[in-house]
């Protein structure tokens, strides 16, 4: 029961923050709402007993991605300068489509009875994740690191001042 109430509170908070991200005209405000969403998700991770992920979520999303977004907004001052509106011409149609998509997908998902395993989360989760990275998932792990490197090189090259 407590879990349910907690979930509802966190979920409602997160969705509200998400709505804020979507509707805020000011990009700085939107970025702030986004940080709120990231926090909410981290809280849900804790609720799901995935503490490692919650930590990672805060460090990566808030520490890196959100900061990056704010930097980008500042680097291109006036990015939102002369816009006539925050939304394009198809927004109302997009909204309709989204509601349809949401209704359909959640209906499809809920219809499926998932066989929940009533086991508790392992205590050595972090250790298992770690050994997964250097064991079975070593190839994806290495590929991910190369991916980060490529993104770094590409981002620097693209965003560098021109002379």
């Amino acid at each position: 029961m407590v879990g349910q109430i907690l979930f509802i509170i966190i979920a409602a908070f997160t969705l509200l923050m998400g709505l804020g991200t979507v509707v805020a005209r000011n990009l700085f405000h939107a970025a702030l709402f986004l940080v709120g969403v990231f926090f909410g998700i981290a809280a849900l991770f804790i609720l799901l007993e995935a503490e490692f992920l919650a930590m990672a979520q805060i460090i990566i999303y808030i520490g890196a991605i959100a900061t990056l977004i704010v930097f980008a907004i500042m680097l291109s001052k006036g990015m939102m300068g002369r816009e006539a509106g925050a939304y394009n011409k198809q927004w109302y149609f997009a909204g309709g489509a989204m509601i349809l998509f949401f209704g359909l997908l959640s209906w499809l998902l809920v219809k499926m009875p998932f066989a929940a395993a009533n086991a508790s989360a392992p205590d050595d989760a972090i250790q298992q994740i770690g050994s997964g990275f250097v064991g079975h998932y070593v190839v994806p792990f290495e590929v991910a690191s190369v991916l980060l490197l490529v993104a770094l090189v590409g981002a620097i090259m693209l965003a560098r001042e021109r002379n």
Partner: protein
Amino acid sequence: MTVPLSWYLIFATALFSLGFFAVLSRRNAVAVLMGVELMLNAVNVNLVAFWRYLTPSDLSGQIFVVFVFTVAAAEAAVGLALMISIYRTRKTINVDEINDLNL
């Protein structure tokens, strides 16, 4: 675990839809990117919930999420760099104004 799994799924779907809505309707490319981040986060909730409810002993769900983090970070870096580059050329990053290629 008193919260049914379906609640998580519906929550994730809702967040995903919100994100997609931003992608479809916001003019500013940075706002669109934020929408993409919302979508990826929503899927992360899915993955973690599935892991916790279905196979708590096998941690591939959590590992998947870590990889999604990586991809999200790389994507954001490249995307924002592209936007800065475009802003320098066009003085705008409104997606609907970037449409020279259309025939």
